[in-house]
């Protein structure tokens, strides 16, 4: 199945981010990567099952994660990337991916998403497919990488 992943993701950012007080959303770039993805500091992985199967792996720097978490929590200062801030960022990716799923369903592609898992530190992620599409989204001077690793559903 040849699936256009780009528009559902762009539309999701455009509709979810402003609800959280992050108004300036733009697509900064797009590229193909191999399966190894260097972590910018924080990564959140959301599994996808259904007409397509794979993972969406969000990546952002620790600083940007703290800033976004702070905005989501009505400007509450976030000095440490603590449990509350981590939970806010997980929830953000959950909302973004759920919205992507809704956008896909408008094109008759049905997918379900897993619980997000947030990982932070210094590490490399190894995606399940050889080709990973990376969309770089700019959100109020911050950058969120959306890495899409999909395989055809053979089930």
């Amino acid at each position: 199945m040849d699936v256009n992943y780009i528009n559902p993701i762009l539309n999701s950012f455009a509709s979810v981010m402003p609800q959280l007080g992050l108004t300036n959303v733009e697509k900064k770039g797009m590229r193909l990567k191999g399966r190894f993805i260097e972590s910018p500091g924080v990564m959140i992985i959301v599994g996808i099952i259904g007409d397509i199967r794979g993972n969406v792996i969000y990546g952002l720097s620790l600083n940007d994660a703290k800033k976004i978490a702070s905005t989501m929590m009505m400007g509450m200062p976030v000095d440490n990337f603590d449990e509350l801030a981590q939970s806010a960022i997980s929830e953000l990716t959950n909302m973004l991916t759920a919205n992507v799923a809704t956008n896909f369903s408008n094109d008759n592609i049905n997918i379900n998403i897993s619980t997000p898992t947030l990982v932070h530190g210094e590490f490399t992620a190894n995606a399940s497919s050889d080709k990973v599409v990376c969309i770089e989204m700019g959100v109020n001077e911050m950058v969120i990488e959306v890495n899409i690793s999909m395989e055809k559903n053979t089930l």
Partner: protein
Amino acid sequence: MKNVNIVIVDDSPFQIALLRDLLTENGFNVVGEASSLEETIEVVTDTKPDLVTMDMTIPGTDGFECTEAIHKINSNIKVIIVSSMMDDEIVRKAKKTHVSGYAQKPVEAEELTLLINRVMADEESFLELEGLYSAIFKESLLNVFNKLTKTSPEITNENNINVEKHSAGISIIMGIIGKYSGRMIVDMSFESAQNIAKVLIKREPKNNEETLNVMSEISNMIAGNACSMINKKNKIFGLRVAPPTTFHGESISISKAELEAIYAANAKTQFGDLSISIGFGRGEGEWMSII
């Protein structure tokens, strides 16, 4: 299904009478009613209901504050909103407050009965999953190791603690999706992974990538086999696994997840230690509406 005990929260005596008749006629036990936050806390504490029907507009408070108060008393009590108001904002807030369902006034008997039955069945099947998944994942891990290496790992330190975890070097994360969604994490040191890979491919792994691939395939088998076993117990679960993503590096912290059931354990194998963690949440599947 067992008898369902219900408390009605509504500021209008007329609505309470209407709902009480409707619920009673359809075989539910109405065990109490409340018209304010204080009454809600009192009645819910006293009557320990399975479910509360919640109006949105209550003088001095609202349905969400009352719902939070109820969940402070017992987070297992199901709350469904029965209100004339309904918009995206309310639905979003309702999901956030862990409301189980929504019915718009005026409610029809058949619809409300169906909603309550669904919500209660949902609770029963989550409890069923909670009761069986840890033993099955453990069995699956042991089976996979037994078949592949003819050895039996020793399972230690089994627990249900939901905390941030620090990786020993390699972490493999797999999303689980179905009626309830969750995740499985398999974690180990590079050394353990290399030893295990060496046994399975019967030679030194060529590089780290090969080691990671072997471990992600093992994880895939553990999760896949376990989910199939769970689905065989009750097909309502319909669990499937997303492809594994592996993480490796100097410092990997895996955050505490928003999961309601967690099982973690260490597996001591002849080749080194690994740890597994599996969790499920009630998730979106829980949300129901009859609008």
